[in-house]
């Protein structure tokens, strides 16, 4: 056997073991979850499901739910990681939400991925699934005239099981905490601006996943620590199978073919964007809290400066910021593409 072949096989085996490890780990971690309300009996065949882990998101949740209901989502599955702001009660009251709760460590559950993967394993198999954070709003080509179901149908007809989206950090004009925002408001009513295109792209081996970095957080907070700047590529929409695993949040997956949401030969499949509503006024308060919780990064000490900078109520806006207008604007700027979905 040639050396190249041996190497290929070795890598394949290693990735397989890695994938299995993550799956077993997710199954093990299910013991940390207690059901609050289980309405999963309502789930119909072929339904698109939303999965997510949340903590203290009462500000965003009402809009989040109505946004995705409008896209055609009929069932949400959430893990509540110790909220104390009423998020849990709010979610438990929703007719289309199934809710689990845990007070275990977010960090040690691979930032919630283990918990969500267990729910995906149990309820997501064979469904198109959206794995999201509460501050992510999905935008895809034609989203004002076509539904998510239309999109998944197209993906299926072109033999794709995953759909990539780039994170777009939205921010207000003026210091972030000087805005007014009430629970239930549309975050896009104050977060109207974003960085047009200062993003860089790399492919990572051996999983062939993207590593996209850039955006406003890098421009303002991470200019001198570029390796730590936020990863912007995500694979939120996947036709799930029990054999699948998220590796690094929803940034990369195994088996590696699911990471191929891009094309090599200049051939463009459709892609989307996740509007990231992180910079709501509460961020300054929350970043003080997160700095002490140390649950968000593997080496949290290194991110203290980031939290400090956020706590100082920065203004992220600059004169070349772009005002968000919709998917067609994003397509025009090259941040997403309709690809072959016309």
């Amino acid at each position, binding site marked *: 056997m040639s050396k190249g072949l041996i190497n290929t096989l070795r890598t394949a085996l290693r990735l397989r073991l890695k994938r299995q490890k993550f799956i077993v780990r997710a199954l093990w971690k299910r013991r940390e979850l207690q059901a609050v309300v289980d309405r999963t009996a309502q789930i119909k065949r072929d339904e698109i499901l939303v999965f997510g882990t949340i903590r203290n998101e009462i500000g965003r949740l009402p809009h989040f739910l109505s946004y995705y209901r409008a896209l055609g989502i009929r069932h949400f599955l959430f893990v509540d990681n110790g909220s104390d702001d009423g998020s849990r009660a709010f979610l438990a009251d929703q007719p289309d939400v199934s809710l689990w709760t845990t007070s275990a460590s977010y960090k040690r559950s691979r930032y919630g991925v283990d918990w969500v993967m267990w729910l995906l394993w149990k309820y997501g198999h064979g469904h198109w699934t959206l794995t999201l954070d509460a501050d992510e709003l999905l935008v895809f080509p*034609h989203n004002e*005239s*076509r*539904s998510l*179901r*239309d999109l998944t*149908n*197209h993906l299926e*007809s*072109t033999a794709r099981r995953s759909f*990539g*989206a*780039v994170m777009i950090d939205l921010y207000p004009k003026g210091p972030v905490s000087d805005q007014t925002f009430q629970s239930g408001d549309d975050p896009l009513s104050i977060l109207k601006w974003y*960085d*047009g*295109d*200062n*993003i*860089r*792209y*790399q*492919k990572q081996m051996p999983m062939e996943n*993207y590593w*996209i970095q850039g955006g*406003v957080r*890098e*421009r303002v907070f991470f*200019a*001198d620590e*570029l390796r730590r700047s936020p990863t912007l*590529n995500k694979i939120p929409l996947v036709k799930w199978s029990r054999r699948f695993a998220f590796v690094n949040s929803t940034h990369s997956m195994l088996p590696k073919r699911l990471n191929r*949401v*891009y*094309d*090599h*030969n*200049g*051939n*463009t*499949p*459709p*892609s*989307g*964007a996740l509007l990231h509503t992180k910079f709501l006024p509460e961020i300054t308060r929350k970043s003080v809290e997160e700095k002490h919780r140390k649950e968000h990064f593997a080496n949290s000490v290194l991110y203290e400066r980031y939290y400090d900078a956020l706590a100082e109520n920065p203004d992220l806006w*600059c*004169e*070349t*910021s*772009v005002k968000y207008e919709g998917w067609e604007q994003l397509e025009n*700027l*090259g*941040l*997403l*593409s309709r*690809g*072959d979905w*016309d």
Partner: protein
Amino acid sequence: MMVHTDLHRAAQLARHWSEGGCPVVLHVDQKVPNKRFDKFKRELEDLPDIRFCKRRHCEWGKWSLVAASQDASELMLETFPSVQHVYLASGACLPLRPVRELVEYLEKRPKTDFIESATIRDVPWTVGGLDMERFTLRFPFSWKTQRRLFDRYVRLQRRLKFRRKIPDGITPHMGSQWWCLTRQTLSAILEGPEREKYDAYFKRVWIPDESYYQTLARCFSVNIESRSLTLSKFDLMGKPHIFYDDHLPLLKRSDCFVARKVWVNADKLYDKFLSKERIEECRSEPDPAKIDRIFSQAVMRRKVGRPGLVNQCRFPREGSEHGLSAAPYTVLEGFSDLFVDFEDWLEKSTTACIHGHIFDKERAQFAGRGKVFAGCLSDDPVLRDYAPTDFLRNLIWNTRGEKQVFQFGPRDTQDTSWFMAKDVNASIIVVTGAWAVPLFHSNRSFSEIREIAAEQQRIESDHVDILRSYYAKARVQIYTLAEFVQSPTEPMQRVIDEIGPRTMRRITEAPRMVDLTGFGKFLQNLKNQGMHPYLVGDFPIEGIERPGPKRPRKPYLVN
């Protein structure tokens, strides 16, 4: 009408055709459960002119599809003697114009068969490379479910040079499987004396529904109009394009009679085109060309993507970029060292966006020297140098529509040299050795200057090697400093031609060259120290005879 899924839509369509005065024969796939089929039948019970033919198990690309349409056609011709044209449609074919208009259109053309039918030799339509071989090989395996066996068997037959004989009297033709044939032609095909022979042959042809009627119509028809009345578009993979609600205006404009494939949940399309209140009359000929243009654009966009764009779904492999950058740009090397306020002058003389050294080690010198530029590109050198080609590609992408010009030189980050050299959009004009001019004016100790000069010469030499390499695709023009100073007119003309639209403005003022008195001596000193600034060219020690500053130089006139 051939139906296999989404029976509620099929029922709606059958009702529409029938109420428009056309008898309908339906073939419902055997795969549909009997219970569902019975319900479907009951839904259409009230319509008098609807018949159901024998149900078959249909599979894509197989003979069963043709057999089903034969059954249906026979039943149609038998049961409804008044029928003059038979239109083959599917459950996803949506009539775009009132049925009455189609009927009138066909009545005016009683002898015409509308069937797309082209000889295979001449038309390279097929996806996957099987064109003539469809007719000469055997295909016992399913392409959809047994792809590997299918491919291997094809390869084996090729190797063995196996060939089936095409029956006498027919020439293989292919085309869209959605046809509209006259009673005369269709009955001739179905009742022809040699039908058995032809059927036996086509049973083993691959995708016979695209060739059976298309080939035989050529034998029997008196007047073939080789086009389908059904608008259908295919993408690169050979899959039909699907029409959604937002295609409504497009479909309305096409004036075609029928379109497929219409997405089953496109409620707006179905409501609009099947509504009974439609009164707008369009008597024009169907014009699929309008739609063609839009869809071929889409196919091209998928095939090559948008040049110069890398994003979430486009990450071209080296060599497949179809353009490294999005738009033409100009790189000027050495000019800003040689002229005083060169950028300001260029700014005044052209319409382009003039940057300084955007790869300067201190900061990216954007036009206007802002901290951020289009697309929120930051001037932070660390950020930029982390991925310099991305930086440049983004800069060009973000400013599409406005020509970008920037300065470059050996004092800058060099990582983009290859990218620029390989980019057909780049136009690079270099004055080599110009880096020596600021050194000459600097007030440093000579040993320091010597060291810096050696370093910069080495960097520029590497850079120029790249520009001259076999792989370079950029338009490159290289002058030595000596050549340039001797006759600056031609290169300057070139710069203006490159950048500014010629007819826009007249240049009234030439840029002022820095004082080079004593520069020749300076170079000689370098040489004496063992550091030969060969990139400068042959610069005479006495300096080059140029019109002195007292006599104003003739301005470059650009008309």
